[in-house]
């Protein structure tokens, strides 16, 4: 199969997402929140920059996660339920190629979404500070890694949707993402403590759950902490490998499924 076919599927998936009302509702709501951050920040004293940066990155993260989950869980199951994938899969398109195309289309939607949010946040910071120094490496790296966070969320949603209903897939994907965030808070304590029971289970969870905290540079943007390129590259590699593994699993599951 040529590489071209997954890209054709991806293009159609992006077009589908851009015609979804849900996508626009979430994007508009997040943009309003970011644009409103200037007003909200005036309620605090001396912390305006941090408030704007925090609202911008958090809104991108939360709404991006919702878009990734709600579009992701329907991306395969809806095609099967509505039988729209029948004429596609009856062509010389492999199941893995189809799934990769659907995922790439979703990813392109998320990249567009993050780029839009990042631009809105940068605009608010520029309006507040009146200079460009507030949008530096940390800012770009934070939004870049956030895209990888969303890539993982989307891959989880797509993986569950290859064998489960959209509702159950949403719950499972959100639960694992939530666990990935929460586990980051306690893993250091659990892994260092000597008297923790079932330490092996903690180690397994540490390996299996997505380390969302690793891909989170919100604080670096908010507090102006330094960010090294090597650190960003390492984190990016982790995020990309994790998402790619989930997509490969999803492709494997989907390839074995009867479409009836």
């Amino acid at each position, binding site marked *: 199969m040529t590489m071209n*076919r997954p890209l054709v599927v991806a293009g159609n998936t992006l077009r589908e997402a851009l015609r979804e009302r849900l996508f626009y509702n979430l994007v508009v709501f997040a943009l309003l929140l970011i644009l409103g951050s200037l007003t909200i920040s005036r309620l605090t004293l001396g912390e305006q920059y941090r408030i704007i940066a925090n609202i911008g990155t958090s809104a991108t993260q939360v709404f991006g996660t919702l878009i990734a989950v709600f579009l992701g869980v329907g991306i395969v199951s809806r095609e099967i339920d509505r039988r729209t994938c*029948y004429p596609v899969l*009856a062509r010389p*398109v492999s199941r893995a190629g189809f799934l990769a195309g659907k995922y790439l289309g979703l990813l392109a939607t998320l990249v567009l979404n993050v780029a839009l949010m990042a631009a809105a946040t940068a605009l608010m910071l520029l309006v507040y500070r009146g200079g460009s120094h507030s949008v530096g490496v940390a800012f770009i790296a934070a939004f870049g890694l956030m895209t990888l966070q969303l890539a993982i969320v989307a891959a989880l949603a797509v993986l569950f949707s290859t064998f489960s209903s959209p509702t159950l897939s949403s719950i499972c994907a959100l639960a694992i993402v939530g666990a990935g965030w929460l586990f980051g808070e306690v893993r250091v304590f659990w892994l260092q403590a000597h008297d923790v029971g079932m330490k092996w289970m903690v180690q397994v969870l540490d390996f299996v759950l997505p380390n969302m905290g690793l891909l989170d540079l919100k604080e670096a943007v908010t507090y102006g902490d330094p960010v090294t390129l090597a650190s960003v590259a390492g984190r990016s590699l982790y995020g990309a490998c994790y998402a790619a593994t989930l997509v490969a699993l999803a492709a494997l599951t989907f390839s*074995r499924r009867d479409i009836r």
Partner: protein
Amino acid sequence: MAPPRPDALSVHDLGKTYRLGLRQRVVHALSGLELRVEENAVYGFVGPNGAGKSTTIKILVGLVAPTAGTARIFGRPITEPGARAAIGYLPENPSFQDFLRPMEVLRYLGRLSGMSGAELDRRAESLLERVGLSHARDLTVRKFSKGMVQRLGLAQALIHDPPLLILDEPMSGLDPIGRRDVRDLILELKRQGKTIFFSTHILSDVESACDRVGMLLRGRLVKEGALHTLLDGTIRSVEIRCGELPTAALGAMAALSGKAERLPDGCSIVLPDVDRANAAAARLLAAGVRIVSMQPSRETLEETFVRLAAEVEGGKPREALLA
């Protein structure tokens, strides 16, 4: 000497078993199917709902994996995605992404079949014209009627000009004009050298378009062959239509045939064989009655199908048909 050309479609010992529910109840949707469809044939795959027609077709186009047997498209195993390049597939009750316009659907699916550029656009335009959808080119699919979606389904199956068409209930959802259009299209495609394999449970569709027929019941092929070999060609009765008869004469004919009745424009007498029909006609002519027509009646495909179903089920055709 050149090697013989492979069959358009060949199926050997094909089977599909589903395991359903928590208790993994075993359902044999298809068992030991053997099929050969030669190039440029129109093959009708008939059977009642639930007989396994759609399962067979879904296996052929790669949507469902068989649990037994093999199938080949022009000699290539169906497990190779590349083999599907030769297929144009119309699903039963087709469905397309409803935010797309018909040209967008055809461009999308055409690209997936390896087409591009001006050639694709030209082909899509001419197919929209051919299936009667050029007036709806600016509408999105969500505004289409069922018949329009079916026509779009036919266009997408033809977009890459495949040598083999696999059509699952192609006349479903169409009005009489639409059905005639599809029948004409199938015959036109045959003239162009295409091979057509289509499923239906409406037997008149088969009689009007097919060279060969396979009858499927409960996941098994119970009869297969050229249409004329499947039909029992013997004359089962002869109907004489004639002018008005006096009541006494009509009674005499009823005694001879068992069925004679008055019609608004004359009388109808049904006789069980040709000899008795000839004798009755001679008596009518001798009595000065005008004979309008003599029509022999042979077994229809539908009657053949019901008879076979009865044979399979030991005299209970309804159970076989409702399996």
